[in-house]
């Protein structure tokens, strides 16, 4: 079957220390305990049937080998078929039950993973990339599924098969059985050790493959740059090296596997050789019958088959244990943004926002992203926020929408601490349009009405006019029902930005937060959007981040942030009069300033701190 494999982060070497992680799976499997037990019992029965077949063979062969005996063929043939019929029936039910359980467990795990991920916060997503999470939901769940359907059964069956096989062998001839059994532990031990030794080779192979994948991906993503710089030949040479390295890694893994095969294979052959030599001698001495000797061959095949399978199962177990650990890391992760519904914000929402000595520091950051913010935004006010990259503007907006874990007592909407409001309610009141214009690969309509699919066309068009998207929609062949492609690939950067803006406007929320939503929109269009915004927002609160003075000047109040603090606040005229950062910015952007020394001064001041690693 086509297993969907996702390139994931490098897997640690599986080891037995991980095995206890499998205990997490118990609750998921427990509800099927009865079915599991029955199925297992059924499978044991099938093994017993397998073990009976050589006995029938023995009867038949003995009757043929001894001229004094009447040939006894009908009963053994019938017996073999009978055992087969029982085996066939039981196997179908038992195997199917086990596999159904494994599918159900995979289903449950995926569901739990997805549920948890939906409500996780930014730190979680910073440390777990999409590829990483996908790899857990796909590869790791797949591995657990294997263990549930095959792995543990193989181990139980191993003991049972070995016991049954030994029982019949010792029953027929203790002398021969003793000798034949001697090499078997060696097969198990060597097989197991060599299977363990395989891990580094697999890892090397996986890493080499990952190198090929990422080299290709990057190279093709940057193909224009490479072609523009005429580096194709050079890149092909490098690709050849990467590919050769991969081929070498695969070869090494195969060589190791071949060694393993030869070692385990030869060790496994010792027992049949003993049967031939010692068993043959016993037959000659009339200690055992020829039928016994051939039955030994059959039991040996059964037992050695299980012994070689056990090494494979154990490695599967360690792999699944590591997978379980990774899955439950996600399922058991604590939610960053704790939900509470203690306080209700009454309708209609006035839209007053109050920051009370608000400070926020990102986990693992050296200094706070925003600090000591004391500010009251009046209902209906429009606020523009300016400042350099990394000055804390986005953090401030994210804090209001609780996209970060806003500390309690810092931010109040209409007098209620936002930490006491349920997140769901809060995000109905507050709409944030993020900087990165993300669209889903559905129709434009579904994207615009993402939060509430049954909005009227009139509402969509109204918002589209205000968001400057109306003309774009009209120009599209299928209008609102145009498919936008993966991540909105069919739209230009500006169109995507206006679509996300429209998606925000359509919600008609009490508080609208715009995180630099005009960066890819030209100034002309921006003017239109700003007036649409003014019309739609009316007397409701709007906060917007911008780099352009032309955007900011329309706001009721302008805030300039630096190093996480508000350093300038006031109207356009007030800030111009103040002659600070805002005034400098205005001068440069309008280019009305012929004073080169002022520019030079700015350049000097900025060069030292702006460009120096703001990453």
């Amino acid at each position, binding site marked *: 079957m086509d297993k969907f494999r996702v390139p994931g982060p490098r897997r640690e070497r599986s080891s037995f220390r991980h095995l206890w992680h499998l205990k997490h799976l118990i609750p998921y499997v427990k509800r099927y305990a009865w079915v599991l037990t029955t199925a297992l019992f059924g499978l044991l029965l099938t093994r017993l049937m397998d073990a009976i077949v050589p006995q029938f063979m023995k009867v038949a062969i003995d009757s043929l080998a001894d001229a004094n005996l009447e040939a006894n063929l009908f009963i053994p043939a019938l017996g073999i078929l009978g055992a087969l019929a029982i085996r066939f029936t039981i196997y179908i039910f038992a195997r199917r039950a086990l596999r159904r359980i494994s599918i159900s467990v995979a289903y449950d795990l995926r569901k739990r993973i997805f549920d948890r991920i939906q409500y996780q916060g930014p730190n979680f997503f910073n440390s777990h990339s999409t590829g990483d999470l996908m790899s857990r939901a796909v590869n790791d769940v797949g591995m657990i599924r294997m263990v549930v359907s095959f792995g543990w059964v193989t181990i139980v069956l191993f003991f049972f098969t070995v016991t049954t096989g030994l029982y019949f062998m010792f029953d027929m001839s203790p002398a021969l059985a003793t000798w034949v059994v001697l090499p078997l532990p060696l097969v198990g031990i060597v097989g197991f050790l060599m299977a363990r030794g395989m891990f580094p080779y697999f890892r090397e192979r996986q890493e080499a493959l990952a190198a090929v994948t990422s080299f*290709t991906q990057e190279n093709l*993503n940057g193909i224009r740059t490479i072609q523009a710089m*005429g*580096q194709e030949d050079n890149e092909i040479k490098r690709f*050849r090296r990467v590919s050769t390295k991969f081929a070498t890694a695969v070869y090494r893994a195969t060589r190791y596997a071949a060694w393993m095969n030869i070692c385990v294979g030869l060790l496994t052959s010792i027992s049949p050789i003993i049967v031939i030599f010692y068993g043959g001698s016993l037959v000659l001495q009339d200690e055992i019958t020829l039928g016994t000797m051939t039955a030994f061959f059959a039991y040996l095949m059964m037992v050695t088959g299980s012994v070689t399978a056990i090494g494979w199962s154990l490695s599967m177990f360690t792999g699944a244990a590591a997978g379980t650990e990774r899955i439950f890391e996600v399922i058991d992760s604590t939610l960053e943004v704790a939900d509470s519904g203690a306080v209700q914000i009454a309708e209609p929402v006035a839209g007053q926002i109050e920051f009370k000595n608000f400070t926020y520091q990102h986990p693992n950051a050296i200094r706070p992203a925003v600090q000591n913010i004391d500010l009251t935004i009046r209902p209906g006010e429009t606020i523009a926020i300016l400042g350099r990259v990394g000055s804390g503007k986005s953090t401030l907006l994210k804090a209001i929408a609780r996209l970060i874990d806003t500390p309690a007592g810092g931010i109040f909407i209409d007098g209620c601490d936002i930490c006491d409001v349920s997140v769901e309610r809060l995000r109905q009141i507050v709409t944030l349009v993020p900087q990165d214009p993300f669209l*889903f690969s559905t129709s434009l309509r579904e994207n615009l009405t993402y939060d509430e699919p049954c909005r009227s066309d009139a509402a969509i068009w109204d918002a589209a006019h205000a968001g400057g998207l109306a003309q774009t929609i009209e120009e599209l062949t299928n209008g609102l029902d145009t498919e936008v492609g993966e991540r909105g690939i069919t739209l230009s*950067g500006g169109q995507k930005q206006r679509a996300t803006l429209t998606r925000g406007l359509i919600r008609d929320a009490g508080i609208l937060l715009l995180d630099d939503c005009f960066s890819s929109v030209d100034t002309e269009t921006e003017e239109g959007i700003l007036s649409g915004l003014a019309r739609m927002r009316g007397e409701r609160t709007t906060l917007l981040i911008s780099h352009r003075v032309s955007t900011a000047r329309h706001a009721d109040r302008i805030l300039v942030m630096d190093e996480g603090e508000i350093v300038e606040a006031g109207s356009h005229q007030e800030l111009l009069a103040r002659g600070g950062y805002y005034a400098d910015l205005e001068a440069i952007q309008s280019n009305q300033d012929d004073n080169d020394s002022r520019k030079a001064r700015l350049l000097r001041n900025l060069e030292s701190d702006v460009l120096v690693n703001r990453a």
Partner: protein
Amino acid sequence: MSEIENNDRRDYSAFDAELTHQALNMHLFGRLLTWLRPYRPTLFVSIALVVLAAAMSVLMPVITGRVIIDTILVPNPAVSDMPDYGLIGVTSWIEQTFATSPIMAATLLYTLLILVQAFLMFVHRLTMTSSVLKGLRDLRVDLFSSLERKPASFYDHVGVGRVMTRVTNDVENLVDLLTGFGMLAGEFVPFFLAMFLMFHISGELTGIVLLAIPVAAVATYFFRQAMREIFRHVRNSVSSLNQYMQEDLMGIQVVQLSGRESTNIEQYGVFNKENRRQEFRAINYEVLFENVNMSLGSIITAAIVWYGGGAVVQDQVSLGSLVLFTQLINMMIQPVASVGQQFNTLFRSMASGERIFQALDWDEKLHEPVGDRVATLPVRLRGDVEFRQVNFSYLQDEPILKGVSFHIEPGEKLAIVGPTGSGKSTIIRLLARFYDFDDGMIFLDGVDVNTIASNDLRTRVGVVLQDFHVFSGSVIDNITLNNPAISRERAEWAARLVNADPFIRDLPDGYETLLAERGNNLSQGQQQLLAFARVLAVDPEILVLDEATSSIDTGTELIIQDALHKLTEGRTSIIIAHRLQTIQECDRILVLHHGEVKEVGSHEELIAKQGIYYTLHELQFQDVGPTAK
């Protein structure tokens, strides 16, 4: 027929479409083998070894059956004329030469066969793997080279993701294909040898065994028929499940801001349930098929005991041969069952092969000058650029450039301005020969660019694209792009000149700092400066720059302006400008509107003219109401 129309007619959707999906496309397989041709000697050795090894494994049951049982344990002179392939003779030779007991001699021979067989298989695996891996490595590199040289028009239409899986997954699937074939060969060689041997010993018993094979084949066939649809449903359900999750994760912020969490959980649940349903359906069949295959062996064994036993009683068949038959049954059943198991792999791999060859056969390329037409350029161009009546369209009937003509003197700086979609970027793309054009001409120092090899051209025309692509690797690698011709000193010099040096030195490991793909650890401005350094390091005669539109904070912008000034100094430059600052740096401005050159002149001239530039300037750059002109 012009090349442009030619491109237009290409059906790019074919590139993504599901291909024919023949399970056994021999033509394709044959073509695949051409990549193995250089490694033919190793392959032949490998195949010879596997045949030998198979012969050994078939002979082992002959030792137990014919030698040990029929001659040593239960001597039966009545069957001494049955074939033993000289093994009885070898055994007695060992017996006499080393003075051992007969049973010891047989054991020694048996052991010897095991050792030789194991050794042969070992060498077979190594030689086979090494030649297959090398062949596929070559195929992968060939595929990569062909992708590397596909023109920009190709990548305009075909997503990188789609192409990429061909280099990675599809080639990997071919490994499965070839090893799958290898495995089948490894099983079918003993199959035929065993069949030959069995037939030799007893035609009737062989007939019984062979009866089972059509049964297995028919079962396999019906299973495959039934499973084809079911597997397809399973695959589809898996991919919709995963795609949904992936997209949800990528847009998680929007999901949460829109309060869609519970709706999405529900939606994911629908996909999850559907997947479970399909998987449940699939296992019903799988378990049944597995079971049928496993049971066949037992049925044949019963038949051999019943029928063969009767033959033994009548001395038509020896007892040893009967045992031998039961031991060979597995060798007969296994390959038939394997074909069933391998079929899905083969099926998938064939599709992969088709996709790979489709990419290799995709013959879209730039028209390169050949033979006498190739112009030899001087070591250093003066930098004179001329567009003469250039018309261009990506799609038929949608002209992007209409009769564009202009001329740039060596060392001159030209700014191109115009609204989105006016054709600004296209001018750059044509000059750098990302696209073929044949309506109109472009000259560099008076030489038609269509006569310049694109590789040569691109070392002379340095292009800075709007989005700077960061490759994962060190900063220095990103400046030199691993080009051995650029020394480290030169790269650092370039970085210093474009003001990138201070921030680079401030990075944790300076020039050795590893950058993540997409440059997540660099700001927009820093990326821009690196792009400048990258192009400066090559020192092209002509600089072409598509200025980034996204707004950056003003401080950074000042530094970039300064860097741009140094970069363009004394170099013919064409800049698609979005910032007034940049425009004012330039000697002349060209206004493009709907693909036509509307105005050309200096800033002052165009302002005085009160035309398009004046309007654009008023709208875009004059923000300060009271003081504006």
